[in-house]
């Protein structure tokens, strides 16, 4: 089925001043749609983590958000270095973030597990050297 409408966002690399804008904009849209506040919250947390990962680890990328009658699908994709071992990356506390990133309060290795916890469906695709695609689905009803 086709989505009712879609939104696309650019996620710039290493620019922390705009990081989080896409998820914040989606949060506003969901509120306008009258989605239940706890669902809005889970959606924006999951999307934010994926967005920040694209900024920090993926050299920036794109977000595509599609709105359906009963769900939202979010695809965050980048053409960065990709992930060697997805299972390892998914582990809580695993992080390859360099010190300068840790100094900014990121790099606890909690992002991906946080997405898993908050998303209704979550698929992580990655190929070393090619990039990473994070699919998140949220049911609205």
């Amino acid at each position, binding site marked *: 089925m086709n989505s009712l409408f879609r939104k696309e966002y650019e996620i710039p690399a290493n620019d922390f001043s705009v990081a989080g804008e896409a998820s914040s904009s989606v949060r506003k849209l969901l509120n306008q*749609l009258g989605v239940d506040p706890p669902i809005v919250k889970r959606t924006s947390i999951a999307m934010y983590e994926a967005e920040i990962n694209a900024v920090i680890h993926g050299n920036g990328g794109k977000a595509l958000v599609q709105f359906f009658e009963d769900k939202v699908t979010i695809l965050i994709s980048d053409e960065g270095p990709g992930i060697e071992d997805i299972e390892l990356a998914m582990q809580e506390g695993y992080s390859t973030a360099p010190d300068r990133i840790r100094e900014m309060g990121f790099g606890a290795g909690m992002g991906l597990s946080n997405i898993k916890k908050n998303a209704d469906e979550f698929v992580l695709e990655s190929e070393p050297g090619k990039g990473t695609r994070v699919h998140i689905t949220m049911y609205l009803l």
Partner: protein
Amino acid sequence: MTKYFHSVTLEKDKCRGCTNCIKHCPTEAIRVRNGKATIIKERCIDCGECIKVCPYHAKKAVTDSFELVQEYPYKIAIPAPSQYGQFGRDYSRDRILQGLLEIGFDWVLEVSKAAEIVTDATKQMLKSPELKKPVISSACPAVVRLVQVRFPTLIPNLVKIESPMELAARIAKNTAIRDKGIAKEDIGVFFISPCAAKVTSVKAPYEKKESSVNGVLSMKDIHIRLLEKMKNIPADIESPLVCSGYSGVGWARSGGESYALGNEQYLAVHGIHNVIKVLEEIVADRLEGVEFVEALSCTEGCLGGPLTVVNPFVARPNLKWEIKRAKETDFSRENSAKDYQDLLWTEDVEYKPILKLDNDMLKAMKKMQQLEAINEEMPGLDCGACGAPSCRALAEDIVRGLACETDCVFKLREKVSSLADQIKALVQNTKRRNE
């Protein structure tokens, strides 16, 4: 629920439809229609931003008049701590409190005293392990209303302890009844307010069924009257009305409530647009290591309230001076709360989804689809000439049936020029046929 009331209104005659205010409103509550601004009342949180920016002073707050004070046999003034920043060093807190008696009040109780009790109660509350952190101060009613309309998931984080104003009014009333034997209905408690938001919190309270405050006077409105009377009071007078210490007085400025709490893990933010940014961080679970958030709608806190007289940056050193003086005689220790449970709200705020496009989510989706399509076609200049704060807001008004596409001057021009082309073609055709 109480019927909705908000205190910021427009004086139609003064408004020139300049659109200065529309972009500053944090909830996009203002539209200019037919050359005059109007406030969508459900959306207004009474922050007073529009009062501050209007170059023609057409926006104002509805407050009570001094005549109302005269209707009560026993008149009590409860001045907000920001009152102490409104005059220079020659006008001490003692002199101001005495001045309030001179303008016609029978007694004065400092709201800063109640602020110290609220601080103590908050300290106790912060120890409770089940508290949702970070807790967000409820001292500023504009911020509480903002949370209510834009950040529903933060409602549980609000500190649901009575405001210093309400507590002061309650103490004042009880004291007058108990110690002075005055009948309850003869007592009029008047808050001297720096802002519109406090007026609303008295007329349409969210924390309890009925406010203990009988009327709200604007700090601005009593300024001259008070100044005149104070001139006849010696500058070095010592007033028996002083009953709070430096920490309560400090509440008037941004950071004051946090300082009083003595909690190192606090964040103090002021100015409504900054507040929104910080609340967004909290909603997204991005704020770490912060236990207490003091969020005040006005720049520099209540010293920057829309009904104050002096610029907040001028008021700050005035207040600082009073804080310094207050350190000499410290009352803070006396003002404690026995049990914070006694001060908890008896009512609660609920989510007001004013930004929702439709009550039915499917319909809302369809409207959003239209909205997005209309917005795509807009020039994207956010010029405000249509009377809406942005192109997107106009698109939203269109799908809500409150505006039409040709309210946009660029859309109108396109339409007019295509109409002109059609007329030209028509005229030429007719000419040709006639030849």
